[in-house]
């Protein structure tokens, strides 16, 4: 970028490159910006701007169904992400030091929920629970969320472990720390940013999920995405813009937090 001259040999400049990049970012961000802008629109017609207003946010916060749906979303995401993170941490810690036959099979197994299109495990699990006579509801949704949250928590934790110096644990055991003590005093504190980062990602994924919740949910397990879907299907209202914007902002702040946590570690 430093030399503005039209130098044929500039490796950093390619014709059309800037245009494509500008198109990319406009394409990806413009709809989000328009959605957020319209959520502050006073008008009911949704797409014509009249004047600034917080009315739709006020309405959203006074709507009992929305509050209940938000409560369900948070409950499911909290339980699923915490459980998945504990399970994933245990597996990741062991996988980093253990070598056994079938290790690759296990790695593939862990990644399975994110390898196949979500609709397939969703309907398969629906048939599974229905065949067993299990009533669909919060419980079935939480179980399914735990399953697909595991890879999202596992992968960042595994990545952190790869970057860790194994000599630290060796040093601890040389100093007569038991394996359990070495884990809690050395591995876990070093791993904590990775674990938190994985947990936040799992939380977001669960919070945003639609397909699995839609097929495995029942009465009383309506989450925000399910509620929004229902409203959108029956007709767009400005309230949807308000809740949608809030969900976007929540995800954006959480992912920034997660990346910040992950980044801190990589600086060492």
């Amino acid at each position, binding site marked *: 970028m430093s030399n503005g001259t039209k130098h044929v040999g500039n490796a950093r400049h390619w014709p059309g490159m*800037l245009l494509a990049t500008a198109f990319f970012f406009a394409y990806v961000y413009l709809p989000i910006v328009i959605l957020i802008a319209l959520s502050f629109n006073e008008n009911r017609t949704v797409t014509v701007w009249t004047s600034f207003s917080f009315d739709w946010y006020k309405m959203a916060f006074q709507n009992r169904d929305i509050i209940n749906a938000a409560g369900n979303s948070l409950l499911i995401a909290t339980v699923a992400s915490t459980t998945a993170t504990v399970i994933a941490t245990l597996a990741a810690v062991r996988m980093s030091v*253990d070598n056994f036959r079938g290790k690759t099979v296990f790695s593939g197994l862990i990644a399975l929920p994110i390898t196949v299109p979500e609709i397939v495990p969703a309907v*398969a699990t629906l048939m599974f629970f229905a065949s067993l006579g299990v009533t669909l509801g919060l419980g079935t949704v939480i179980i399914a969320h735990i399953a697909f949250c595991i890879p999202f928590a596992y992968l960042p934790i595994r990545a952190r472990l790869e970057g860790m110096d194994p000599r630290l644990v060796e040093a601890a055991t040389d100093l007569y720390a038991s394996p359990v003590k070495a884990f809690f005093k050395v591995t876990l504190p070093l791993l904590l940013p990775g674990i938190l980062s994985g947990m936040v990602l799992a939380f977001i994924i669960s919070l945003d999920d639609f397909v699995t919740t839609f097929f495995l949910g029942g009465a009383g397990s309506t989450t925000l995405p399910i509620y929004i879907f229902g409203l959108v299907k029956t007709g767009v209202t400005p309230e949807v813009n308000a809740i949608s914007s809030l969900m976007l902002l929540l995800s954006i702040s959480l992912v920034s937090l997660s990346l910040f946590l992950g980044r801190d570690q990589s600086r060492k």
Partner: protein
Amino acid sequence: MAGRLSRTKIRALLIGPAAAVIGIFVVIPLMLMAWISIQGRDYSGGVIWGELSGEAYLRMIFERELDDSLAVNFNYVLIILRSVWLSFLTTVISLLVGFPTALFMATRTPKWKAILVFMVTLPFWTNLLVRNYAWILLLRDHGAINGTLSWLGIISEPLPLLHTQLAVAIGLTYSFLPFMVLPIYASLEKMDLRLVESAFDLYATRLMTLRRIIIPLAVPGIVAGCILVFVPSLGAYVTPELLGGGKTLMIGNLIGLQFGAARNWPFGAALGILLLALVMISLTFYALKLKNTGGNTQ
């Protein structure tokens, strides 16, 4: 205490829970689905356990007439072909936009690289449903695009944009485009710019440099990106549901229907197996391609 546990026991305790959860709640249901796909169907759409039947698979191509004979029915084949076509289109558009974007990112300074990667990653973590809903606001008859076009005087009647194949293609590209950019960026990021400069010094044209140096370096990223866009597009549910209409149904929606209004579990299960098979074929293709390119560069 832990010191006295055998290796196998520690393994079972630590890796066991993850294997159990995914084994019981993902693998077993998938196996059950395969089994249900070859079971008979009763009148209410449920499963006749133990009655082996290929009816669900026949149904993809044939229709049973009243006299029990089979007649060819291309309705479902059409939906399957449409899914493949829309996913292919999405992949091509993503590649055309994603490659130059990745090249731009890879040739920036480290500080800018970090910011750009963050900006590309961010949308992935925001709600897919909400992001697709945002496109309804843009594509509707009185939405942002039609509004702007008529304000500019280019059109007098709103263009029918929503509930079309175009809308679905736009939505799919929008949903999965970052998956194309990131792997290509990853393979170009470590590219030594001096390599490109020396090509220029040796009188290579831009096109030649692109073809002989940059694209070969980007191939692993391009292949990975194409898979990461193609596979989720193929199984998309939310985008065609929101932005498409009755004539833009994709496999995912057809599967969903069998567990809702249409109620035909064996058929839904068979379609699920078909989708899995298509995904497997794509992944095998990816593995082979990667092996080939790996062999060439060495």
